[in-house]
C-alpha cells in the first residue's frame, strides 16, 4: 500500500504525433516539426520514426535533413497543440482535483485518496489513455508512470517509451534503478555524471545506496535532494496551482527580408507589444526590460556574427506598450549600429510585480499654481496605460492585427508569430477549471 500515489503522463513526440494525427499520410513517416521552415530552423519535435533514424530535437533543419533525407518537415502550429493539450488535460482533471500542468505535453497527477492502490490508479489511467485515443486522436500516444513521489513517477513514465505504463514501488525501485544509466535521471547531465563518477558511483542504484554524508559533502543541497529523491522521499509536491511567471518575453529569428527593408525596429516593437499584451493579461507590471540582439555572421549559416544583451530598469514598473517599446528601442540602438544585419531579436520583461494599487500625489507648485512635473508624468503614464488597455479590448474583439503601434505599421503578421514553448501552458483551457498558465 502506497502512502502517496503520484502519476506522470507524458505525451510521446507530442508535436509530431499531433501533426500525424491531423494528416494520416504523415503516419509511419519520419516527421520533424520546426520552429521555422528554414535551413537554420530548429527541430522542436521529431516523430518516433524520425528518432529511430537519428533525428534529434535541437538539430537544425539542415542537419536533420542530412541525417534523414526522406523526412517531412512541418512548421509548428501552437493553436493546434494547445487545443489537443486542453482536451487531454480535461480528461486528466476528471481523475483527481490535483493536476499539475508541468508542460505542454506533460502532467503530474496527485491521486492520493482517490484510488486505493497503484493497481486501481493504473486501471484508471489506462481508461484515461483509451479516452485520449477515442476522443482526441488514435495516433496520440502517451507514457504513464506511477510511484509514491513526483520524481519517481517521472522516472517511471520515461522507463518505457512509447506507450508504456510503469509502476515503481519500494519493492521494485532497486531493480528499476539498476537498469538505468546515471544520465537517465532527471537533473543529471554529462558534467554531473563525471562529478558523481569521481566519488565512485557509476549507476543510479549505487547513488541511492551511497552514504548521505558523502553526497552532502560533495554536492551540498543538490546531493541531499538527489539522495532523497532516489530513496523515494518526497521533496517537491504536485503543484496544482500554477506559479506566477518570473519573466515574460518574445523572440524571433529575423529573416533577411527584414534587414533589407529596414524593419528591424518594427519587428522589435512588435515583439515588445506581444510580450506586453501577455504581461497585461497576467495583470503584472515589468520592472525591467532586457533586449538581446544576435548579428548575422559571415559564416555559411550566418550564426557567428556576435551580438549581446542589455538591461534597462524602469523608474516605475509599467505595463503599457509605449513605455516598454520605448525602453526596448533604446536598448536596441545601444547594441546595434543600425547597419549590420540582425539574425535574432528577443525582448524579456523581468522583475515582474503586481500593481500596488497605491495612488501617488504630486506636490502643488505654489509659484506656478500647478501640480509639479512628477504629477504630470504620473498622469501621462496613467493615460498610456489606459490607451494600451483600450487597444487590448480592440484586439480582443477584432483580432491581433486590428490595431498596432505606429512603429509596426505595415509589418506582416508572419513576423513575431505566436510561439509555443514546452514549459508554457498559457492558453491551455481545461473544461470546468478555466485557463491555466504556468
Amino acid at each position, binding site marked *: 500500500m502506497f502512502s502517496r500515489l503520484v502519476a506522470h503522463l507524458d505525451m510521446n513526440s507530442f508535436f509530431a504525433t499531433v501533426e500525424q*494525427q491531423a494528416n*494520416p499520410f504523415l503516419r509511419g513517416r519520419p516527421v520533424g516539426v520546426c520552429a521555422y521552415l528554414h535551413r537554420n530552423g530548429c527541430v522542436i519535435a521529431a516523430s518516433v520514426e524520425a528518432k529511430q533514424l537519428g533525428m534529434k530535437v535541437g538539430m537544425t533543419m539542415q542537419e536533420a535533413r542530412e541525417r534523414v533525407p526522406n523526412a517531412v518537415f512541418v512548421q509548428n502550429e501552437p493553436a493546434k497543440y494547445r*487545443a489537443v493539450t486542453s482536451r487531454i488535460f480535461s480528461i486528466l482533471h476528471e481523475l483527481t482535483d490535483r493536476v499539475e500542468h508541468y508542460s505542454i505535453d506533460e502532467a503530474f497527477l496527485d491521486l492520493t485518496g482517490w484510488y486505493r492502490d497503484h493497481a486501481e490508479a493504473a486501471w484508471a489511467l489506462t481508461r484515461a489513455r483509451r479516452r485520449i485515443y477515442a476522443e482526441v486522436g488514435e495516433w496520440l500516444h502517451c507514457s504513464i508512470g506511477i510511484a509514491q513521489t513526483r520524481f519517481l513517477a517521472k522516472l517511471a513514465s520515461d522507463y518505457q517509451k512509447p506507450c508504456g505504463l510503469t509502476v515503481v514501488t519500494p519493492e521494485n525501485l532497486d531493480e528499476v534503478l539498476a537498469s538505468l544509466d546515471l544520465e537517465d535521471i532527471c537533473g543529471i547531465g554529462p558534467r554531473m555524471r563525471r562529478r558523481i563518477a569521481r566519488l565512485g558511483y557509476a549507476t543510479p542504484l549505487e547513488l541511492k545506496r551511497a552514504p548521505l554524508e558523502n553526497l552532502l559533502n560533495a554536492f551540498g543541497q543538490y546531493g541531499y535532494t538527489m539522495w532523497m529523491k532516489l530513496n523515494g522521499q518526497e521533496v517537491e509536491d504536485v503543484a496544482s496551482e500554477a506559479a506566477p511567471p518570473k519573466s515574460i518575453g518574445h523572440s524571433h529569428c529575423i529573416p533577411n527580408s527584414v534587414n533589407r527593408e529596414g524593419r528591424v525596429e518594427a519587428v522589435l516593437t512588435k515583439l515588445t507589444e506581444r510580450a506586453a499584451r501577455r504581461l497585461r493579461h497576467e495583470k503584472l507590471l515589468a520592472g525591467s526590460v532586457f533586449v538581446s540582439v544576435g548579428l548575422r555572421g559571415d559564416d555559411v549559416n550566418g550564426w557567428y556574427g556576435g551580438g549581446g544583451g542589455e538591461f534597462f530598469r524602469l523608474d516605475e514598473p509599467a505595463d503599457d506598450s509605449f513605455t516598454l517599446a520605448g525602453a526596448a528601442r533604446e536598448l536596441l540602438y545601444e547594441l546595434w549600429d543600425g547597419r549590420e544585419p540582425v539574425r535574432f531579436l528577443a525582448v524579456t520583461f523581468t522583475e515582474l510585480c503586481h500593481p500596488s494599487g497605491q495612488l501617488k500625489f504630486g506636490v502643488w507648485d505654489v509659484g506656478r499654481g500647478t501640480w509639479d512635473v512628477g504629477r504630470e508624468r504620473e498622469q501621462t503614464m496613467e493615460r498610456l496605460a489606459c490607451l494600451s488597455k483600450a487597444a487590448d479590448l480592440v484586439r480582443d474583439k477584432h483580432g491581433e492585427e486590428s490595431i498596432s503601434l505606429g512603429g509596426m505599421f505595415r509589418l506582416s503578421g508572419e513576423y513575431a508569430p505566436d510561439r509555443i514553448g514546452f514549459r508554457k501552458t498559457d492558453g491551455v483551457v481545461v473544461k470546468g477549471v478555466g485557463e491555466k498558465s504556468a
Partner: protein
Amino acid sequence: MLSFFNLFSPMVYEKVNQPVEVLAAFRNDRTEPMTFKWGKKYYQIRKVNLVHSEHNGREKVYYFSVSDDANAYRLSFRTESLKWMLEEICEAT
C-alpha cells in the same frame, strides 16, 4: 500548416484559402463535415482526424483536419461569418 519537402519526399502541401460548400452532420455533440465542393468537384470526406479552434478577436474559427483516400485537407469554419474555407490540401503523391 507550412511544410518543407524535398525531392525524396512524397508530400506536397498547397495553401488554398478558397471558399467551399460543405455538407456537415451535427451528431453526438460534434460537427462533422461530410462532403465539400471545391470548384466543380465534390470531395467525400472519409475521416475527421483532428478538430481545433482558434480565436481571431471575437470570432472563433474551427479547423477540421480531414482526409479522403488520396489526400488530406484542412477546412475552416468561421463562427461570425458562418463561412467554410478550404485552407490547404496535402497531396500524398
